[in-house]
């Protein structure tokens, strides 16, 4: 039992950046917009969070800056997809390429620098609970914020009027339009919220997790988040489970390496990614057997009022 605690705790920490991105993408996709720019948005978030923290000395300012950058760049995605009706896959890939290149270019000067990011802040009382305490409540504030966000998003989607329109616009934008709401405005809003959360996930990596800036430091986490949305069938709780599973396998793999084995390190490094592929294949097979999956029906399709379908 004891040896599980550090692994589980590490699973939470390394799963958190992915969780932010996944939550963001769930909101975006629920609105019917596919954003494959997550990887780029996370990198931009990681870079801008790091640099803003370094300049101001305040990690919270860094995180806020990352969110702003994420929202701004995803607004561009929304403009291309919603206003211009561009292909969402192409636009998303372009955002990823842009984010990768831009963060690498601007980040050159910051490689090797260190900052004082967010530290651990155990939750009073709760952290003392055996087992649960050290696993769940001995972390930095962003981890706690992510717990709150998961619950909040679930409640928001299922029980509020805004959540209702969010579910509707991704399923049948015509119905939302006929009900007199602006499909474009909703899609802009949720694309930007999603982008902001993805960038926050990226900033978590640089400002909290490693407290440094490395080119391409997200290492495909943005793509994993895209996969986890499907794994979580657009449900925040399941997405959280997926993120921690991915984080846990990563942490476990590190420990196996540290313990010294004959298995080559690159193979171990591949583990979390292989897991993702296996899970996705498993889900698709089940889908073939007629299980209703939660994919929003209008995902990826632009909406034009006067065009018939």
């Amino acid at each position: 039992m004891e040896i599980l605690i550090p692994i589980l705790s590490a699973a939470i920490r390394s799963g958190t950046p992915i969780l932010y991105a996944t939550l963001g993408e769930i909101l975006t996709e629920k609105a019917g917009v596919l954003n494959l720019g997550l990887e780029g948005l996370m990198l931009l978030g990681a870079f801008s969070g790091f640099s803003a923290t370094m300049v101001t000395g305040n990690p919270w300012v860094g995180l806020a800056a990352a969110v702003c950058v994420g929202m701004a760049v995803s607004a561009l995605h929304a403009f291309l997809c919603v206003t211009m009706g561009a292909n969402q896959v192409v636009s998303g890939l372009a955002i990823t390429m842009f984010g990768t290149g831009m963060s690498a270019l601007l980040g050159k000067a910051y490689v090797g620098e260190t900052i004082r990011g967010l530290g651990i802040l155990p939750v009073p009382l709760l952290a003392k609970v055996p087992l649960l305490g050290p696993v769940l409540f001995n972390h930095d504030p962003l981890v706690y914020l992510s717990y709150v966000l998961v619950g909040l998003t679930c409640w928001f989607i299922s029980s509020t009027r805004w959540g209702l329109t969010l579910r509707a616009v991704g399923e049948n934008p015509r119905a939302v339009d006929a009900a007199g709401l602006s499909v474009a405005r909703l899609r802009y809003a949720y694309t930007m919220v999603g982008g902001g959360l993805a960038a926050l996930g990226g900033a978590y990596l640089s400002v909290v997790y490693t407290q440094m800036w490395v080119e391409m430091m997200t290492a495909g986490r943005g793509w994993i988040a895209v996969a986890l949305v499907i794994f979580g069938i657009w449900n925040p709780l399941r997405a959280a489970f997926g993120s921690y599973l991915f984080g846990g396998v990563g942490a476990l793999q590190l420990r196996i390496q540290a313990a010294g084995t004959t298995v080559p390190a690159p193979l171990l490094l591949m583990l979390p990614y292989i897991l993702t592929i296996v899970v996705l294949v498993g889900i698709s097979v089940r889908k073939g057997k007629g299980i209703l999956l939660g994919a929003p029906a209008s995902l990826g399709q632009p909406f034009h009022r006067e065009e018939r379908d």
Partner: protein
Amino acid sequence: MESGKQQPLVQMLGITKSFASVKANRGINFDVFPGEVHTLLGENGAGKSTLMNILNGLYQPDAGSIRVKGAECRFSSPREAIAAGIGMVHQHFMLVPVLTVWENLVMGLPDLKAVLPKREVIRKIGELSGRYGLDVEPEAQVWQLSVGEQQRVEILKMLYRNAEVLVLDEPTSVLTPQEVRRLFDTICQMTAEGHGVVFISHKLDEVMEISDRITILRSGEVVETLPGPMATREMLAEKMVGRKIVFAVDKAVLNPGDTVLEAEGICALNDRGLPAIRNLSLSIRQGEILGIAGIAGNGQKELCEALVGLRPIQFGRVLLRGKDMTGRKPMDFLRAGVSYIPADRKGTGLVGAMNLRENFALKNFWRKPYAKGPFLSWESIAGETGRIVERFGVSAPGLGIPVRNLSGGNQQRLMLGRELSGTPDLIVAMQPTWGLDVGATEFVRDQLLRQRERGAAILLVSEDLEEVLALSDRLAVIHKGEIMGMVEDPRSASEEELGLMMAGIRRETAIEGEKGR
């Protein structure tokens, strides 16, 4: 309706609207008074839906104005229209299938509480349902509902928003006769309370029954507005189409030839994996129309799909001209000369984003002269598509436009043209006249009869009892995937007997029941 004394609820003046080269509406004047049913009648593509979409704020008119209770209004979105008291139930529903009924009802309401007030909403739904006879289960998800129930949800949605004018675009084309009666009761209840109703339908009997006034459109223009009680079937049809329409079906007496299709004890599942067809047997001979009557959702779609190879058969066999086709691919059925006219023209029938030529090629790409080795001969495809467009009277600005831009009826004509233009051995037709105007309905029935005379075997599935009775040589009634009885001479069958079979009482018992009384 004494139109002179009251103020109209809405008034549309000089409405004009074009789509690219199509003039859908030209200077149309239209109004609705409190407590009346004003019907819009016109051929497919006459511009009825377009006019109502303008009233609903979905489309912007190129010219003309709208007045609500005398005050000039411009609706830039449906929200503004509904705020002014105008609600519309579209030809294709605007519901969100994965949401529940009550969620669909309140979605987008401007004064909705932040946390969804579920109990309150359900209570209000109960009130409205009771008042207008619109029963639905508020907590059911919309995809679980029958089409008739979904329509009730749409109407409730508008009443919930206090619509004073309710536009119903072809509401009855998807309903069973019983459901139509219920809808008419609801409409009467609404007009009695001072609502105005705009009704669109191609079924003249319904139009004459329910309308206070009728406005006839032809090619985007008003032909005439006349009081409902004065109208006759023949007169309406003639004004609408511009020529006389023959309503009686004139069917040649034929001696059926060899058996073309035989189904032996077939079983098939529906999309949810539940049994939809149970141990069903039937056979059709050359020059014979076998009608299948029944209430929607009793396995008709599954039966048709199983017979054309689109749905796997669990047990039993399908024979075409004595050859076992069980388990063969749809392409094999196509090559064996099977034509299929599905009920959902937008799903299985046509691809909305493809143009007319491509949609024709979809079912003919494999045969000469449309295929030249591995290549398509666009020339002969365009040639034949052009002929179909002409012969079946598809009104389209060109062969190169996406079919989703055609009016519903014109899409149907195109699909029928594709399926009926060759020399198929077997035609499986589901609701072939769905959404067609009287002229086109006459034409399609005529085409089916001609194919019959040519020697095709035809399976005609329709919820329109009148249609199957008029066209079929033999008639089977389907209920829950089983055949309740076979009527050898449909013209002599009593509607009551058929009604009993449609409700699930087997033929023998049904007849005994009749005798017993």
